[in-house]
């Protein structure tokens, strides 16, 4: 039995915005795989909820004529993984969200919830960062569009004001076309777990010249918010693809990430794993691009 005071069900974005404004003590619930856990733990006990589950506009994935991909915030992880647009254009995102919890969670949990929850361990986050995604937020007026990197404010905190709703995650065409991605989730077991450390690499390879043309590396759980390794990215861009590149990646990442020490895992341990998984993920993206054939 969950301790929920009131429950409001919105069927349109406008209605959801109105309900949130009318009832300032409410929280948004979609799949519920985060919210219900917090209610059960007592952290949100007695809360009131506005459900956005029945808002049809929030569901599904479309590719616009210009190639931009719009992912409805209410789209579940399973739907993302199995969506042909995702599979064809940005398989790394489908693979990343397929590592969330277990099948039941992936059937109910949504990408919007994953992002708005603000957890640094969210399995969608590093890839969405590495894809330079934009977030479309509606507020009943004109709304706004923000880059994902500006959205995370701190652990569990995102840039979402009362009455605002995340409606779409947008992956602009220029950010994924010609790129390959790989996500490595390092966790203590192979399912039903959250990341101890995670890394998503998206790269563009010039196979003719055998150089790494562009690369974006994002870590989950290496800092209070998902963390782009800009220094490493800058150092790697334009480098020749070789064993040296991977060694450089490993070293540079360990200089750049700043993971915490906790009972779950020591800082030193995370540093070791961080360098290793960034290297392995980069290597995989280069293999996917057909590079590194030696």
């Amino acid at each position, binding site marked *: *039995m*969950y*301790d929920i005071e009131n429950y409001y069900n919105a069927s349109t974005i406008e209605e959801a915005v109105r309900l949130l404004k009318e009832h300032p003590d409410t929280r948004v619930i979609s799949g519920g795989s985060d919210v219900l856990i917090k209610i059960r733990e*007592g952290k949100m*006990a*007695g809360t009131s909820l506005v459900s956005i589950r029945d808002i049809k506009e929030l569901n599904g994935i479309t590719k616009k004529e210009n190639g931009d991909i719009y992912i409805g915030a209410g789209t579940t992880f399973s739907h993302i993984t199995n969506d042909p647009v995702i599979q064809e254009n940005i398989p790394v995102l489908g693979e990343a969200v397929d590592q969330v919890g*277990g099948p039941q969670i992936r059937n109910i949990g949504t990408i919007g919830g994953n992002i708005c929850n603000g957890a640094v361990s969210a399995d969608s986050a590093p890839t969405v960062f590495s894809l330079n995604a934009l977030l479309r937020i509606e507020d009943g007026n004109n709304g706004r569009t923000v880059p994902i990197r500006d959205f995370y404010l701190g652990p569990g905190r995102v840039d979402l004001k009362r009455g605002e709703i995340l409606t779409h995650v947008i992956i602009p065409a220029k950010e994924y076309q010609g790129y390959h991605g790989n996500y490595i989730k*390092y966790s*203590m*077991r*192979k*399912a*039903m*777990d*959250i990341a*101890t450390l995670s890394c998503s690499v998206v790269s563009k390879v010039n196979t003719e010249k055998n150089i790494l043309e562009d690369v974006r590396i994002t870590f989950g759980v290496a800092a209070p918010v998902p963390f782009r390794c800009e220094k490493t990215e800058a150092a790697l861009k334009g480098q020749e693809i070789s064993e040296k590149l991977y060694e450089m990646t490993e070293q540079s990442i360990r200089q750049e990430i700043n993971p915490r020490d906790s*009972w*779950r*895992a*020591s800082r*030193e*341990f995370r540093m*070791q*794993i961080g360098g*290793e*998984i960034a290297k392995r993920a980069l290597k995989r993206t280069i293999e996917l691009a057909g590079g590194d054939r030696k």
Partner: protein
Amino acid sequence: MVGKSIPRVDAYEKVTGRAKFTDDLILNRALVAKVLHSTIGNGIVTSIDTSEAEALPGVVKVVTFKDVPDHCYPTPGHPWSVEPAHQDIADRNILTGRIRYYGDDIAAVVAEDEVTASRALKLIKVEYEEYPVEIHPRKSMYGSNPPIHFDKKDNVLARSNFFIGNVDEGLEQSDTVVKRSYKTSIVQHCHIENPISFAYMEKGRIVVVTSTQIPHIVRRVIGQALGIPWGRVRVIKPYIGGGFGNKQDVLYEPLNAFLTTQVGGRPVKLEVSREETFCNTRTRHSIEYDLTAGVDKEGHLLAKDMKAYSSQGAYASHGHAIAANGLTAWRLQYACPNTRGEAYTIYTNTPTAGAMRAYGIPQAAFAIECLMDDVAAEIHTDPLEFRRKNLIQGYYEDAYLKPIAANTNGIFQCLEKGAEYIHWDEKRKEYADQTGSVRRGIGMSLFSYKTGVWPISLEIAGARLSMNQDGSVQLQIGATEIGQGADTVFSQMAAETLHMDVENVHIVTVQDTDVTPFDTGAYASRQSFVTGTAVKQCAEQLLQKILDYAKTLLPEQETRELSLDHGWIYAGEEQVLSLEALAQEAYYSLSNSSVLTAEVSTQVKKNTIATGCCFAEVEVDMKLGTIQILNIINVHDSGKLLNPQLAQMQVHGGMSMGMGYGLSEQLVLDEKTGRPLNGNLLDYKLMTALDTPDIKADFVELDDPMGPYGNKALGEPPAIPGAPAIRNAVLHATGVAFNEIPLAPQRLIEGFKKAGLI
């Protein structure tokens, strides 16, 4: 019937959801109870204010430690002893104001519903005086002020020791002496169904329906805890969702029984959460070992010494029996003229440790089998060869506890099967000189395990058979089905001895202390052995009664021998009377009716040693700190198998536990408060299906003369040998000896770094 893989008798009920568990039986309009736990790890409650909670609408009753009986009671699922010296330690109150661990039970709320009960808990105001917290046994054993329990000044619950020969001389004569320290972690049973009960009153008596392995013991302990005659308590045990020893302890049943008396006998439900199950029920003891072994030039063990420090947690529960069981294992199986052991069980400010599958032997076997590999490495001997050289072949008996003995001993056959499956000789060589950061290795370990608790404790079981009008029988036993398949093998046993189809044996799965024959319950891998003996005896009695009655119906067959086979009475080779017709006569004959029943209460003064081994092949990715199990096999000598398919399932489940024990499971406690940091199924790394490799189970079937059907212990042993086998395989792969489990990634990375491998 015995020895066949018949389907479980409860399979369809469980798979279709028809089987009734405690929560399915809760009476309408039952009240809900919740427990208030302390937020300090050691100290006393200086004040408690329940007025706001009591004022909350929907709250029926709030009780605190001030309201409960002030005498202490014991909780472990041991048979009671009539000798005071052997009685379990009584050190617990139903609720307490003397906090001994983080989460201790201070008060309870009874409310109309769960949400109200939870809200009321938050309204209770508690103030404490705090004492320093000590979570390490080897520090706690030097005493604390005040001690955790007033009558144990040094916090040592118990100490025991033994010696055979002269260990010091043996070590002096040894050519090589190896000393090592090993440590096992606190783990939890993680049965699917959390502990749950509901209690109500009927005709002045208390009825408790509960998810337990030991209904008759729960009845006794409720009587003791409440200070009421035991006959005033009735305990009912329906289907349960696993126990693994956690429910071989009396948990919240006394509190629940007390609560119903406080609300006029209305039904009260008390279900603990998963988090409470981790913190407030029982765990497996963490034990620290210092071991020493000496061998001669040929690699024969000359002396071995064990010191064990077992962390009990806040309350005695099963107490020293766990560490003592490890001491017994230390003197079995290996031939060694000089052996010594000493064990301490020490109170600490941590969650209470109790019984868990294989009762102290997974801990001891981890230490012993790591040591055997470490000695072998030290003298450059193949570890399997080293064991073969030192293991006892054939019959042996314990030097102290008679009649514990290996009446059959299949360890050498087990080793042969395991080595062949894993390709021991080839792979030991193949993996000998590896370079690179990903390496493979193979390792093994073995164990011995007693069957039941005789002579350490009483073994008694009851069974009742009565024949129905159609010639089928009702079987009632006091022993409990807890998922292990007990109901199925008891049905097979009765069918075997009565020469009937198992479909004609109707087993009563629910134990109800008002009607069920007395049996102490499911633990110690005892039921198929001890209760099995009772079932066999009972079936033999009924068979005799059937044949005796048949004689009265068949005076003309006076000269021929009568027998029963699958529904027919035979005179010699001739089918002369159907069992159904006989049963009809027994029920309704106007001249000679007497329903055919048999009931036994059987004490079993036997014990026999089961054995087995595990072989594992691993791949270690040193830079990521991960271990992948490529192949793993357990081979068990558990006597004759009663149901091979169920035996396989037992082994699979146990191996899963063994792998989790070795690789990932550990309840982590906060140093300062003793609070569990990962007491939930997300942060406590129980293995999932994806983490579990293909599991191989094999058997060596020797007909043990002590077992009622040639069988001996199998329920618990499968959980024992996995962890040390994996550890030894990692040692083979990398040369790094990890002496503490679990071999979780961070421990591995630290070890490989220290060894300069990464």
